[in-house]
């Protein structure tokens, strides 16, 4: 480690001294957790961003300026995220920042970006109900993941839906929207499992079953699911997060449930998460994202091979080179950089207001997951894919929904 550290510290000094003279460069912030609990997910996004910058620089940069990344570590520490955002905007005066994974980190930096008139690209599926003038959400909105998945399951003849998730804002909000969506599609309330909690006036304020982070005991919940699924036309909509998927799927298999009788569609398990999960136990289960590594297209093949080639010769300290995959948050980060580049070139300026105006005007980019187009509401129009898990941790694509318009405010829209 020390041997690795000394050259990297020297490289840091070399970099800082070189950057003083770089007149024709533009500073770009990278704000992800490189340490702490979120590092396992977020480091991949740092890697893909650095790869994208190198790719753009090799092709001449943005408006003739080379991208000069400023990488900061939010360390899975939310106040530190806010501090780092201030630093990027105040000290480094970055033109744009790519970053954040969790909603809480985004909520922590949002006031900073609004106050200092910065620009943040946010790449990870989230609950919506937000549209900051200073954030562009390349992320999947709920209607680009949850509702298409339900459409698919209905086509497959499923009539009963069990909602389960980790107890935080994304699952809670997604399930409330799904409840409205299912009711609007004529699914009766008794066919929606997981339970409801109501306020004093009898209005449903929470739908589905919730377990805390790191929960391990799913015995009771799975036996409830087994009863619910006895009719054979049920499925499970899961927003369970990270590690909790392991005990959940173990218990699910032990209870004799399988993808044939009662499939699980998970919204928080991508190829990258499979690196830490026993993929073989999840074979046949469903996923829904706006990108899968298994997409067969020249753009995707080029993206994967370039990324792997970049990884192989990368000298970023501590970077993992073996067994790397690509997943939706990574591709949405990649798309974000190219959309920003196109917007800057369209606006003819690095100024945040002009770049945002260009983005709102609609900019298209042919990314690895197909064409994405920026919209007035700071979200993207993109393709949505339903995939089935294979033993190698990849997805077999079952269905594609073309050009789904991202919509942040969905509550109360399905009637």
């Amino acid at each position, binding site marked *: 480690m020390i041997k690795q550290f000394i050259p990297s510290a020297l490289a840091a000094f070399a970099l800082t001294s070189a950057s003083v003279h770089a007149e024709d460069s533009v500073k770009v912030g990278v704000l992800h957790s490189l340490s702490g609990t979120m590092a396992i997910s977020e480091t991949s996004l740092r890697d893909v961003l650095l790869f994208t910058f190198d790719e753009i620089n090799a092709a001449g940069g943005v408006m003739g300026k080379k991208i000069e990344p*400023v990488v900061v570590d939010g360390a899975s520490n*939310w106040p530190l995220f806010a501090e780092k955002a201030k630093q990027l905007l105040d000290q480094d005066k970055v033109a744009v920042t790519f970053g954040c994974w969790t909603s*809480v980190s985004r909520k922590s930096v949002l006031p900073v970006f609004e106050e200092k008139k910065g620009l943040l690209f946010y790449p990870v599926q989230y609950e919506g109900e*937000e549209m900051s003038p200073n954030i562009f959400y390349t992320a999947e909105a709920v209607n680009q993941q949850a509702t298409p998945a339900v459409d698919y399951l209905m086509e497959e003849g499923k009539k009963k839906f069990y909602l389960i998730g980790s107890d*935080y*804002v994304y699952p809670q909000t997604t399930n409330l929207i799904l409840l409205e969506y299912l009711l609007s599609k004529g699914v009766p309330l008794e066919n929606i499992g997981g339970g409801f*909690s109501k306020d004093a006036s009898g209005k449903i304020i929470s739908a589905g079953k919730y377990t805390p982070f790191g929960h391990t005991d799913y015995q009771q919940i799975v036996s409830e699911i087994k009863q619910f699924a006895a009719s054979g036309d049920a499925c499970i909509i899961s927003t369970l997060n990270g590690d909790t998927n392991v005990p959940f799927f173990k218990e699910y298999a032990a209870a004799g449930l399988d993808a044939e009788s009662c499939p699980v569609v998970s919204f928080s398990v991508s190829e990258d998460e499979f690196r830490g999960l026993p993929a073989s136990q999840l074979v046949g289960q469903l996923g829904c994202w706006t990108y899968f590594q298994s997409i067969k297209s020249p753009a995707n093949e080029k993206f994967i091979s370039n990324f792997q080639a970049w990884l192989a010769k990368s000298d970023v*300290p501590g970077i993992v080179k073996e067994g790397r995959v690509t997943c939706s948050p990574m591709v949405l980060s990649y798309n974000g950089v190219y959309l920003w580049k196109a917007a800057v070139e369209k606006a003819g300026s690095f100024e945040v207001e002009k770049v945002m105006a260009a983005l709102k005007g609609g900019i298209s980019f042919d990314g690895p997951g197909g064409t994405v187009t920026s919209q007035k509401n700071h979200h993207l129009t993109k393709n949505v894919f339903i995939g089935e898990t294979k033993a190698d941790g990849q997805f077999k694509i079952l269905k594609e929904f073309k050009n789904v318009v991202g919509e942040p405010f969905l509550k109360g829209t399905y009637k």
Partner: protein
Amino acid sequence: MTKQPFTGRLHTPLLIALAVILVVVIPLLNSLGIISNFTLGNWGKYLCYGILAISIDLLWGYTGLLCLGQALFFTLGGYMMGMHLMRMIGGDGVPTFLSMVGRTEWPSFFLPFSSFPFALLMMVVVPGMLAYVFGYLAFRSRIKGVYFSILTQALTYGAALLFFRNELLMGGNNGFTDFRTLLGFSLREDSTKRWLYIATALLLVLVVWGCKWLTHSRFGLIQRAIRDSENRVLFSGYATANFKLFIFVISAVIASLAGALFVPQVGIINPSEMDTSKSLEAVVWVALGGRGTIVGPVIGAISVNALKSWASVGATADFWPLMLGGAFVLVVLFMPKGMVGLPAQIQGYITRVSRNKSAAESPSSEPTPEATKP
């Protein structure tokens, strides 16, 4: 038992100079544009952590109670301030943390938090009462040492799990963010930020002064006697449980006030602040700075957090936890009295070397008595 003089060993002129620099000079330089708003904001945060470190020192360094739950009191103070700040946002309807969970009205327990004096009172009462009840039960049952540490850690963990739950209506995992105004001043104004910094620096100076006074009073003597041999104090007729309870409540309130000032400066409060690792990290600051010295923990908190801010950027970003760990190991191995003990340690070393040297040259010279003092 003579009362120790209040000056003398307290290095008062130096402390006064430091206080003036923190409270007056730094904000002045900021208003002149010499110190950037970003740096000032970071210092405001470091000083909050410094106050938290003092509250740990009061318990650990002076009373021998290693509390691994000070982050809980810090966060509770932060939540009380957060509740007030959320009430001050205004606008139509309720903030997103309530509408997310389907609420269209404020829960009744939020309503009195519109009043700042009430919020201020709660910053003292809520952590104070919790510390009182917990401390009463723990100290009455003669729970001490590692058992006390484990219990405080369990309490913090339980509280964090509770606050993560959305049903508590305290914002769940996301907590409170996007604050707008405090006492009618916009939190986005540079002047408001400067005043918040000044308030933090003032509180720090007051807490340092108050704790110096307390630990050098008769109370402080009993406090240290409890640390060194509780049974002897008990058999001398002192109700040690009451003394410990008093100091536990005081340090909870100090931590809470630090948390309350922390929140408007960093702009977020959520349950991860009461993570057990946060309490442990704060204990590390105290150990690094030098426990049982009041000023040492502040220096420890500031230097570790400044290092964290500096090192979590660029090529060193991957390595800063390693640096922190390395610094901790070095201090534990070579600087048993922490950073504030270093000058005395060096002085002692120089004296030893020169004494050996002069002893070799002229065996009659006397060693200086001051330099051998710890």
